[in-house]
């Protein structure tokens, strides 16, 4: 087990390094620099700015500087938010994204589990169809439409909730639902199909033939086995949702990290882009590692491997 963990950790570090390097290279290939503005700067002024951020050095030296800083956990100064370190920006914004993400994912799981279960148990009845309809809605409604709809209904029409901004507990409700919609739908679908497959297996028939109660058959034998694909999906879903969503953060004015995946690129804020990418990769690697560990909890067969 320890060897497995160590191997995965080393592998994770390699992934991090590859992603960091690729991001570094891709950014330099991208046309346009961080200080290109409508108001173009005289060359001498530009030279001073480039010297301040070491952009005048050869790329190999910049890369070396970047990797060395990364190892120390220093992500460098932001080019756009002058005087602020990327580490500080991420430390400010990531917790917000993480709280919202965890809320959304918990909400998604809380809703998806009963929906998937109901749909599979009452296969081909109106209950199944209603659940599948809800899931389809969740997948096909884009975030920004759902967000706008929720604001229109709960803020403008009913006046129950504030339209946007972060601060009070109630301000998390609408963005949480919006962010949860897609994962919730995916999880419902997956659980439903996985459960249907399991329910057709021989050991279920055996269990029923033995005269076990339907609830025991379902929860003790079927659900547990059907959770494996759901767990596989939960890893990346967790990373996606926790790293923040550009659309949800924009629509609801949430001060999270997700917006930087877009704005830092349009601003060509190299350190900030690299910072959020590295953090995102790290979350993804960790989430997958946790999922791998959870497999062995859910499925005893995995422990043998």
């Amino acid at each position, binding site marked *: 087990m320890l060897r497995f963990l160590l191997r995965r950790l080393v592998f994770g570090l390699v992934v991090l390094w590859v992603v960091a390097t690729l991001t570094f290279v891709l950014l330099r290939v991208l046309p346009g620099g961080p200080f290109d503005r409508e108001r173009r700067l005289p060359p001498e*002024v530009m030279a001073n700015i480039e010297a301040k951020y070491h952009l005048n050095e050869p790329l190999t030296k910049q890369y070396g500087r970047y990797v060395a800083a990364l190892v120390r956990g220093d992500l460098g100064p932001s080019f756009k938010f002058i005087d602020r370190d990327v580490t500080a920006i991420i430390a400010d914004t990531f917790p917000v994204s993480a709280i919202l993400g965890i809320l959304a994912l918990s909400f998604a799981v809380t809703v998806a589990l*009963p929906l998937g279960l109901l749909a599979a148990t009452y296969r081909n009845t109106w209950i199944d169809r209603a659940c599948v309809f809800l899931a389809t809605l969740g997948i096909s409604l884009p975030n920004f439409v759902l967000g706008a709809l929720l604001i229109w209904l709960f803020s403008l029409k009913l006046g129950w909730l*504030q339209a946007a901004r972060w601060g009070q507990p109630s301000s998390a409700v609408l963005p949480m639902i919006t962010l949860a919609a897609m994962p919730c739908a995916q999880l419902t679908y997956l659980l439903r199909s996985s459960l249907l497959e399991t329910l057709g297996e021989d050991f279920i028939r055996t269990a029923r033939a033995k005269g076990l109660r339907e609830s025991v058959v379902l*929860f003790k034998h079927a659900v547990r086995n059907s959770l494996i694909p759901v767990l596989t999906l939960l890893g990346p879903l967790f990373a996606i949702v926790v790293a923040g969503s550009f659309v949800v953060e924009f629509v609801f004015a949430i*001060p999270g990290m997700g917006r930087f995946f877009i704005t830092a690129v349009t601003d060509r804020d190299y350190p900030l882009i690299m910072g959020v990418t590295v953090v995102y990769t790290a979350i993804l690697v960790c989430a997958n590692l946790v999922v791998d560990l959870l497999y062995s909890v859910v499925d005893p067969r995995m422990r043998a491997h």
Partner: protein
Amino acid sequence: MLLRLRKYPFRPILVFLCVLAFYSCNRTSGEHGEKVFRVNLSTEPPSLDWSLATDHISFNVIANLMVGLTEFDKKLKPAPVIAKSWETLDGGRKIVFHLRDDVAWSDGKKVRAQDFEYSWKRLLNPKTASEYAYSLFDIVNAEDFHHGKITNDSLVGVQATDDATLEVRLKYPASYFLALTTFEITYPQRQDVIEKFGTKWTEPGNIVTNGPFLLAGWKHENEIQLKANANFFLGKPAIERVEMFMINEMTTALAMYEQGQIDFLDKDSIPIVEKPRLAKTPGFKFVPQLRGEYYGFAVDRKPFNDPRVRKAFAMAIDRSVFPKLLRGGELAATSWIPPGMLAHNPKIGLVYNPPEARRLLREAGYPDGKGFPPVTLTYNTLEYNKIVAEAVQGMWKRNLGVLVRLENQEWKVFLKQLLNDPSPVFRSGWGADYPDPDNFTKLFASYSPQNYSRWKNPRYDQLIEQAARELNEQKRARLYNDAQKILCEEDVPIVPLFTVTESTVLNPRYTGLEYNSMGRLVLRDARLKKATSEK
């Protein structure tokens, strides 16, 4: 468990709805007192250090925290603030500012001339790497100091001769220099504070300011809080607290305004499609800006190396459609210097004249557009730009028989191409840093880094140079008229399209808020209307 689920299949959802209802009952609608004013900044200000800030969002915060030597009056002329008076000596090469002695920093210390000297030299210091350093290059030795040719900053021509006197020596009589002292980058700074806190000096608790409001809080990416400065030397503002939000999505900001949770929105928060509806509501206002939009031609290549072709394209544009399409009260413009500025002259420029445009194009060898090489009009991706480009494309097709291809590019890609290889026709614009025609006309000087069309005319260069050094306003205006005629009638490297107008909407309970022609939001005199405050 299953039985329970069967009986209550939607229980988790019910529980959630209860939680939602609970929170909604707890919402704090009455939290904001009467004297809290809420505006939307739309994004996080990149910097509150006025030597490093470059964007209007940062300046909109700074403008409420600080005052400088002068500020604009209603006619856009520099009026005294910290400087109670000034003298122009030595034929315009020397300006001596006399400072008031009753202006205090927020920590109680007096604002001194040395604070200005420090701030200006910090702006010019190569280590500061300020983007606006070049703005002060007219000062003696400033440029050499910035380039590192001089390291001794005492040679730079700005000096506090005593606590209340600031002496500025210029390389030549720069008629516009006084206007520069209204610009936030010239505001004073406290050396002790900056040296003590380093890059963190702009954070609440560290920052020391001298303006109507104090920085009370800054939740990054979320909110900035200001509170009235009781010791402000021009009197405490009527508004006790200001909350500045960072809501990026226009429709969300508008929803919050309509819910009564925001009191003021500017162009960054009002979607184009909503303008006609909002224009009918009280509190809505169009504010013409010192900002012009234009199309430029790459004059160093065929087909736009021929002035007749450029003139034909200019005369085939019917500018009256822009306000109808953009719905923002835009002002059609044939000349470049915008209304409100010295030397604005609407009579200059080529007006809409399709027959003459066709004649010129025929003369250039392209009768009815036949044989015209394929050309592209490039603009940066923005709904606003797209609307204009599509309209102009239609006009050129209709009036000249030339179908121009449209291409939109992401902002930084667009800027890179403008610099390296501008497309035959490109969109650009300019907003004033300070309200002087020098700021507008120098863009197209042969040495200007913004001269994307690569047009060069020594006569134009000479005229604007002469105008910059001329102190007599009438003579200046005449020189700029001549320069504008070359730019917009004779050589036509650019076609001015319109002057931008901003839409703003203010909660009708308030009055006194100022949103000026350079997009600055000034909250100093904002207050509740009498009738409302008495309620």
